[in-house]
């Protein structure tokens, strides 16, 4: 079945060499194939940011939404057609910052969608500003004197919004576990959040200061 195997648009990704998003993309495709999901039955909504730029590289139905809005768009798609597999790809800026209200609502609604967050604790596409998960005191480009805010804990937030929601962590350093968790998140019936710990290869060093 042609529609099963190749989830690629054959456009070369534009991420920095060594970026964790290559792995997230590859594993997502692998999980889709393993689950035998026809690409016409998958809708991926992408936030704005480096992770969201995956939009051009995957050949399923997709919506590259406005910043922060990938989750409510995914909810709209799933409510409109529950037969579809609906996944959101975004970063910590879009999902935990601009769109945090939507994340909480999706968890409360327990809509059967999967939100995958490439969490590198930075706004990276805009070249390195503080994000909702940046450690307090980190000297980023928008906080040269050190970030004043304590970081949020997205898993706690989602679980406290709805204990029935699925929320777990993984890291790009551990590809095997990441693959298992992506599969679990996608197959979970109800809302799922997979927070993927990543390090930005271009601006991550800001966090070391």
């Amino acid at each position, binding site marked *: 079945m042609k*529609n099963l195997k190749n989830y690629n*648009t054959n*456009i070369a990704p534009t991420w920095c060499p060594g970026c964790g998003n290559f792995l997230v993309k590859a594993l997502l495709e692998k999980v889709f194939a393993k689950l035998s999901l*026809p*690409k*016409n*039955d*998958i*809708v991926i*909504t992408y936030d*704005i940011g480096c992770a969201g*730029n995956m*939009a*051009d590289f995957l*050949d*399923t*139905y*997709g*919506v*590259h*939404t*406005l910043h*922060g*809005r990938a989750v*409510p*768009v*995914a*909810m*709209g*798609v*799933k*409510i*409109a*057609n529950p*037969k*579809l597999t609906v996944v959101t790809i975004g970063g910590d800026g879009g999902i935990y910052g601009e769109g945090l*209200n*939507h994340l*909480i*609502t999706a968890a409360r609604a327990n809509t059967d969608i999967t939100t995958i967050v490439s969490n590198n604790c930075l706004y990276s596409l805009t070249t390195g500003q503080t994000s909702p998960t940046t450690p307090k005191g980190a000297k980023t480009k928008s906080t040269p004197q050190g970030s004043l805010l304590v970081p949020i804990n997205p898993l706690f937030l989602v679980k406290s919004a709805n204990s029935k929601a699925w929320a777990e962590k993984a890291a790009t350093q551990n590809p095997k576990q990441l693959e298992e968790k992506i599969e679990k998140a996608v197959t979970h019936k109800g809302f799922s959040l997979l927070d993927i710990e990543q390090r930005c290869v271009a601006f991550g060093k800001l966090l070391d200061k």
Partner: protein
Amino acid sequence: MTKAITVKVVGPAGTGIKTSGQLLAQILVDQNYYTHDYTEYPSLVRGGHNTHQVSFSSEKINAPFFKTQILFSLKPDHWQQHKNELEKNSLIFSDQKIEKKINSGKLISFPLSELVKKVGNPITANIICLGTTAFLADLDQKLSLSTIKKYFGQKAKDNLTAFKVGFDFAEKTYQKLKLKTEKPKKKIAKVLLDGNESFGWGFLKGKGDFYAAYPMTPSTGTLHFLAGKAKEKKIVVIHPEDEIAVASMATGAAFAGKRAAVGTSGGGFALMTETVSFCGIAEIGMVFYLVSRPGPATGMPTWTGQTDLLFAVFSGHGEFPKIVLAPGDQEESRQMGWQALNLAENLQTPIIVISDKFLGESIKSVDDPAKEKVVVNRGKLLKLAPKNFARYNWQPACGRSPRTIPGIAGGQFLANSYEHDQKGIATEDALVAQKMFEKRARKEKAALSLTPKPILHGSKNPKKLIISWGSTKGPILEALKMISGNDFGFLQVKTVWPLHPEIERIISKAEKIIVVENNQKSQLTTLLKTKFNFNPDRQILKFNGRPFFPEELYEKFKKL
């Protein structure tokens, strides 16, 4: 001139003013009168000062009137706020013993507190007034009682008693005050709907199946109406966390194949404008139902104004095609409910339907919407995807390319908020970007043949041409009925964007042109100037939260 009678009930919130007004309208419609009501209420739940008036006639009636013939004050002194609505023969019923001399009208001692004791239920004061009204207006008592029975169902008992108490008291006491009314000559079979419910009906008839809204006066009526119908009609009606989510969810639903609409007022629409823009570039067709109230900011939540025309027309960052429709009355609110859905799928771009509190929340006797025949047009929606499907194919001269929805094999595409190529893939290529801008812009041209055309009411070759849009239609039509002669025409702009060239043809023939708007800056004038390089001779504007009434427009028109 329409021979109409206006009955108004006033008093604090929470005394059943709205119920008695709606019930009076129902009684009248059941006895073949035409009605148009109008309510005023502050943004609170108890206390304050509420009004509900019903203007009715044996002929068609397009607007509520300013002058009140029968005024009920549920608490003494509330009537004093309405002195300027009285005329020589107006009757004011108030529970006070001394009959004061007033400049206009007659103050009648109306022992409401005593009558309520007869019923034994203090919350039936409003229905007692209704009984008195029925006697004064020479309505059929038996038919009226059957309407009340139907309206209240199990809870009818006290209300039936109250109606009889009010009717009998009036029969004994107010024989001489009985009004001369013109009886309806034929059966009219009308139903009562406000603009918001009408829009909801249009949405249902047009096979709308996804409606999202966050409560905001004066648009909430549509959310309530559709939420009540959702189960029976098997549609999705949803109240998300904020207006940004409302609009975002609806884009997801529209992308996935639903006929989607959202409802809000100005402040909520402000939050939705990013989505208007997104729909523009991603070519997602959905409907924004915008029911205005006077801003800026929170403004006056429960009052009216046509203050968001330019905001709607210019909403959303960037350049993209957009349609803005303006229903003039409850019937047009219904029609535009389904027309907007058709346009959304046909043109694959945001469609805004702009109404206001006056139209959205005023109830009128209208044709039964359940019987309306409606054409559902889904535009270029494919069932099968062709080989090498390109969702944003820029070949079509009309700018509209065939689309797929998720589930269709081979139809995968990316709906992109970034500029994109014909497959939806992001691009910054100069040539591709320009071609995409041009493709989308061609849809605005295509829209001119699909959107409702302007309508010229009154004289076909008017010397004096009134131009207006939206809810001013009814008051203007009633004002023109009062004027003798054939000098006046009224050009109703139904599609306020893009403006139809027919407007230019009609204005070029008139000697004097007057723009009427329920706003301060005459926003339609700005559009007409921009599009046709034209300045009206006069503007008649009102911007105090109240709608125009026929009488005040007549006074202004006759001096033109």
